[in-house]
């Protein structure tokens, strides 16, 4: 159903584009441009404040590097201790439809997950994934020739699947009634956000964004507030050196579960994105992200996660 719904919305909003941009495009460049600087956006860091129509996607993989993870203590004996890695995967799809010069509608879908690379690490850390989407409005708040500020209202629907062997064994040892190894938890949140861009010159622009969500938690019976705040600098080498290459460097402080894969925790995400800037209609980038991750159930030093993602954005 979700797939058909997304396809249906895509077709309907594509039809809108026949009339949505008749007199608002100021030049043949479809990419967002502010005071001569053409902006390029990554995933999670420095989101677009522009009211353009586009389809964006990203697919990425990451890992923690080798970790020495202590096992489960039974009596005075430690079992399941191992050396291993955790792999992270993520896929993201974002469709934005411009309605007029002050309003756009967006629909997103994402899948993120974490899994051990071998049997012991799967046993110890389980297999966890979050999937779901959001739908919302993006509206212009303030606009000058160098600065653009937009706000957003959205509804986010996600579902978490958690397979936790350690928790299950601990529950068995603690005689917890009705212990379960796997859980599926649906959550829904409402969110408010803002995104802004400021152009220094044709080569350099700055981006910032923030979101706050309130709603259900992945811990049953609880409600929570999730937030995210990011800044980024966007550099385009094309105007100055005629080289079709750009960089986007950013930092995000986030407690969104899709970023942390954790409840009641936050993470600091550093990001560097290389982007091909030669086309006026699309951009294609390779994004490297680094963040620290806290392992549930296990008390070890927070490992760094290195994530590489290939992402595209097609404007129409």
């Amino acid at each position, binding site marked *: 159903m979700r797939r058909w*719904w997304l396809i249906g919305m895509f077709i309907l909003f594509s039809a809108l584009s026949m009339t*949505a941009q008749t007199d608002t495009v100021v030049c043949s460049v479809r990419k967002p441009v502010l005071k001569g600087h053409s902006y390029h956006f990554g995933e999670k860091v420095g989101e677009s404040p522009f009211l353009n129509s586009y389809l964006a996607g990203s697919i990425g993989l990451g890992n923690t590097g080798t970790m020495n993870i202590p096992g489960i203590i039974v009596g005075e004996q430690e079992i399941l201790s191992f050396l291993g890695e955790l792999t992270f995967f993520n896929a993201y799809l974002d469709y934005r*439809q411009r*309605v007029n010069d002050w*309003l756009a509608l967006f629909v997103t879908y994402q899948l993120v997950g974490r899994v051990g690379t071998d049997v012991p690490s799967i046993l110890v850390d389980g297999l966890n994934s979050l999937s779901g989407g959001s739908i919302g409005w993006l509206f212009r708040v303030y606009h000058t020739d160098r600065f653009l500020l937009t706000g957003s209202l959205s*509804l986010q*629907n996600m579902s978490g699947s958690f397979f936790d062997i350690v928790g299950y064994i601990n529950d068995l040892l603690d005689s917890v009634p009705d212990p379960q190894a796997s859980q599926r938890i649906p959550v829904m949140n*409402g969110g408010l956000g803002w995104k802004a861009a400021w152009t220094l010159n044709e080569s350099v622009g700055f981006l910032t964004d923030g979101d706050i969500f309130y709603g259900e938690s992945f811990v049953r019976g609880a409600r929570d507030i999730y937030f995210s705040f990011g800044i980024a600098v966007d550099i385009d080498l094309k105007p100055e050196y005629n080289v079709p290459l750009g960089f986007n460097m950013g930092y995000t402080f986030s407690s969104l579960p899709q970023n942390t894969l954790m409840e009641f925790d936050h993470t600091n995400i550093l990001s560097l994105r290389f982007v091909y800037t030669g086309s006026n209609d699309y951009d294609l980038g390779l994004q490297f992200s680094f963040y620290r991750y806290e392992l549930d159930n296990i008390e070890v030093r927070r490992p760094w996660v290195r994530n590489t993602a290939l992402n595209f954005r097609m404007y129409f």
Partner: protein
Amino acid sequence: MSGKRYVLTGLLLLVPFFLRAQMAVGVYTGINNSKLRGDIPEKFYYLNLPNWDGGIRLDWKVNGQLTLSFQPYLTRKGTKVSYRVDPQLDPVDTAKIYLSFISFPVIVDVFTQGGKWYVLGGAELAKPLRSYYRLIGGEGEKYDIGDHVTSFNVYILFGVGYRHSIGSKMKLFVEARYFQALINTILAGTIDPVEIPRVRSRGTQLEVGMLMPLSFGKEKEK
């Protein structure tokens, strides 16, 4: 002064506003395809169930791009429930759950430059009228589940619409909407021993209707 007099006085005070405003009234009907989504007992599945709805609408044209619309309507939403007897067999459609509401949506339509296509967004307050389930393959008997359903719900709506003029005044509109309940449909702890605390209704609607401008305003609708 009694409550009725307050209401009457309020309505009288609003008359000049309505005389100046560009208003339109209409009727609409359509189909929806909804299901429950969220927690579900083991071996059960929620599937889409088509239903009907219909109502009236009162539109206020705020400016060339914005229209505010009040659209009270009767609707029936629900879900089909399937049950997997054996892991190797396909689930068997077991029951249909019907939730009838009277609903009061307030919707904002935002028109594109062409003036015919628009996107819409809003919220609706829904009061259940009757809730029951019927076993598939049974004798058609309806089993009331009103005690297990929340006393009201709030839905969020997103969608897209198209208006086409018919003659000099009438307009035909078609709208495709997505709706999502914000409040859990099932009252927690009322279905013993099954616990499904997070389950909500969501789905799509396709509505068709007619709009007729009220000719109080001096300006004609474009």
